């Protein structure tokens, strides 16, 4: 029987992990991921999962232990936030370079300095070049659904790449939302058995992981890593098809809201997209023909598909909850690239919002809608990139 319950984002993701019952989980506490793993630890203590926990002494060791465990041939997970992901940074590239399908919830948190435990996307954005697949989640339901699908995408025989599933720290991880849970047997059947290849524990067929590769071959290794990513789009979509059959929920590479007939659009990731949708409904009543595009798969980036969905717009505002200081925000750069092939492109602005947990309110959405509408009228964009909701 399906259960429909009021849970936090952390509880929803912990529940997905319980249903998948991975072989090994290496964990280190960090706000706001901490209670995701605490919930999962309760499951291990009560014998509701057979997962063996490795309570490591740092996030770098968490990813290192995951790499060892995955190479040993089993299903492996960890979870982290902000500086924890930053500490793992070296090992993210190693996990991807070794083609190990590790699955990791990332509860998005700001990076230090200054120290801040609240939500922004600087952590996962900082890891966008690591070779990991990235799925982004608007709310607890999406976080739960994405995490379950993540195993199938990462472990697909044509893929074998690690995957991170993002959700906003505190805003989603700690606030209560309604989640439709799938029955245990349905999830178990959907993720299936993990079929490991070339494992360290097959002593009859010894393998060496992690060679030195010099200039004569490294370049080719990386070209292969990139080529594999192009297969992810099809795999993600076919997994989404299967998921729709068991859940009734249809996922794609991205989501749109009232975009098809829009004159101008907002592009945003995660929870801010939810706020945008509400304000779009109000703005529409006020005569603004505005819509939203919410990316779900950020790595690999579906340039062609997103460009196709946005090309009819006359203007757009890309909202970034992370920055690349001295350059445009990471989401803006990708969206702009997706529109590059077209002769006529929308007028575009990049607005940086919500860093370090700064609230992103309906009034802020109205603000950018009016800015874009204004730019459309005058044909002038005064500032391509700007921080919104700064204190005066």
């Amino acid at each position: 029987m399906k259960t429909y319950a009021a849970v936090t984002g952390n509880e929803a993701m912990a529940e997905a992990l319980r249903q998948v019952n991975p072989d090994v989980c290496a964990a280190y506490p960090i706000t706001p991921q901490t209670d995701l793993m605490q919930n999962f630890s309760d499951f291990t203590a009560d014998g509701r999962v057979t997962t063996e926990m490795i309570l490591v002494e740092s996030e770098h060791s968490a990813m290192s232990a995951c790499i060892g465990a995955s190479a040993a041939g089993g299903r492996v997970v960890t979870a982290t936030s902000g500086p924890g992901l930053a500490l793992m940074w070296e090992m993210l590239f190693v996990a991807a370079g070794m083609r190990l399908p590790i699955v990791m919830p990332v509860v998005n948190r700001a990076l230090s300095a200054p120290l801040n435990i609240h939500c922004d996307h600087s952590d996962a954005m900082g890891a966008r070049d690591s070779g990991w697949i990235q799925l982004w989640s608007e709310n607890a339901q999406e976080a739960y659904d994405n995490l379950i699908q993540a195993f199938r995408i990462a472990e697909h025989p044509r893929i074998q790449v690690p995957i991170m599933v993002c959700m906003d720290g505190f805003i989603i991880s700690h606030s209560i939302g309604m989640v439709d849970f799938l029955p245990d047997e349905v999830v178990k059947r959907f993720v299936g058995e993990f079929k490991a290849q070339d494992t360290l524990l097959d002593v009859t067929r010894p393998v060496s992981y992690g060679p030195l590769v010099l200039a004569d071959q490294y370049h080719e290794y990386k070209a292969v890593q990139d080529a594999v990513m192009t297969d992810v789009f099809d795999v993600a979509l076919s997994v989404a098809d299967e998921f729709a059959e068991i859940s009734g929920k249809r996922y794609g590479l991205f989501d749109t809201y009232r975009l098809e007939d829009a004159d101008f659009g907002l592009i945003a990731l995660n929870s801010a997209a939810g706020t945008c949708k509400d304000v779009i409904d109000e703005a529409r009543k006020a005569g603004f023909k505005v819509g939203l595009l919410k990316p779900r798969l950020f790595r690999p980036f579906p340039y062609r598909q997103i460009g196709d969905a946005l090309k009819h717009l006359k203007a757009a505002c890309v909202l970034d909850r992370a920055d690349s200081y001295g350059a445009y925000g990471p989401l803006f750069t990708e969206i702009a690239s997706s529109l590059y092939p077209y002769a006529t492109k929308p007028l575009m602005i990049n607005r940086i919002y919500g860093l370090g947990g700064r609230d992103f309110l309906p009034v802020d959405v109205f603000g950018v809608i009016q800015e874009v509408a204004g730019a459309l009228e005058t044909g002038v964009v005064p500032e391509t990139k700007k921080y919104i909701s700064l204190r005066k």
Partner: protein
Amino acid sequence: MTTSFKPKDLSQKEIMLAPGHRMCSGCGAAIVVKMVLLAVNKPVVACSPTGCLEVTTCISDYTSWKIPWIHSAFENAAATLSGVETMYRVMKKKGRISEDIAFVVFGGDGGTYDIGLQSLSGAMERGHDMLYICYDNGAYMNTGTQRSGATPYGAATTTTPVGSAMNGKPQQRKNITQIMAAHKIPYVAQASLGFHMDLMRKVQKAMEIKGPKFLNILSPCHRGWRSKSDDAITLSRLAVNTCYWPLFEIEHGKTRITHTPNKKLPIEAFLKPQGRFAHFFQPGHEGMVREIQHQVDEEWNDLLCLSRDKEPEGQQAKTSSELALLHLGP
């Protein structure tokens, strides 16, 4: 099951490191790996941090390792292998594996004493069933002999060179075996390539103990030590016989010296064949020889006291003859 360590029997065993690796001729690390693996009678899965051993034994498309082996990064061999060992326990519990497999790290001193210390400490504290072998050549040799926490006092390295203002490394080396013993793991030991039976017995003993084990093996590096390329075994013996590198084990907290030199040699015997200590013998540097002798004597004395369950005596300078008398005890 006791392994026969007779050369005749050992010569029948397969050496699990294939020739063709890129280690320098005369490298101690190669001997460490071969000796250790000869002493083990069950399948081994190994891990190495970045370092000489790792880069020389696995360069795509080739590997020298005839056993499953993983390298992931520099500072995390213990963490990486603890993941492998954990998955092994899970697979055994699920009935997917039935073999008895041993888990061994072969890590250099850089990846053990310094950058790898955190992950080593964590793995030891968590109690993983693995043997951590440090092949200790006393510097970051792979990158050209930079000082590490294992570099002895006064040694010349490329980051502690000898010049008009400096005389090699000013600090003493870390006592990694005591650090490991303080983790209260069931077995900690120190071994030398010059005493292969002692080394192999220690490996075998470690294999029979469940839980984390640590074995520090001196690994002469003629490049970094500026010694003769065929002096690895000679220097390994001199290290023990000068008490620079005592052979001992700490089993469940109890210290036991496993080899006492018949005649404790002055430290000069170990220093003279190595160019990295050449400046010790320049006029005006006699104080350096006295200092290192004092450090060696102090640590040997502490070890003797620990082996007799005594509190270490007050730190007074003792003459080498007084100390020589001490070790003639029970």
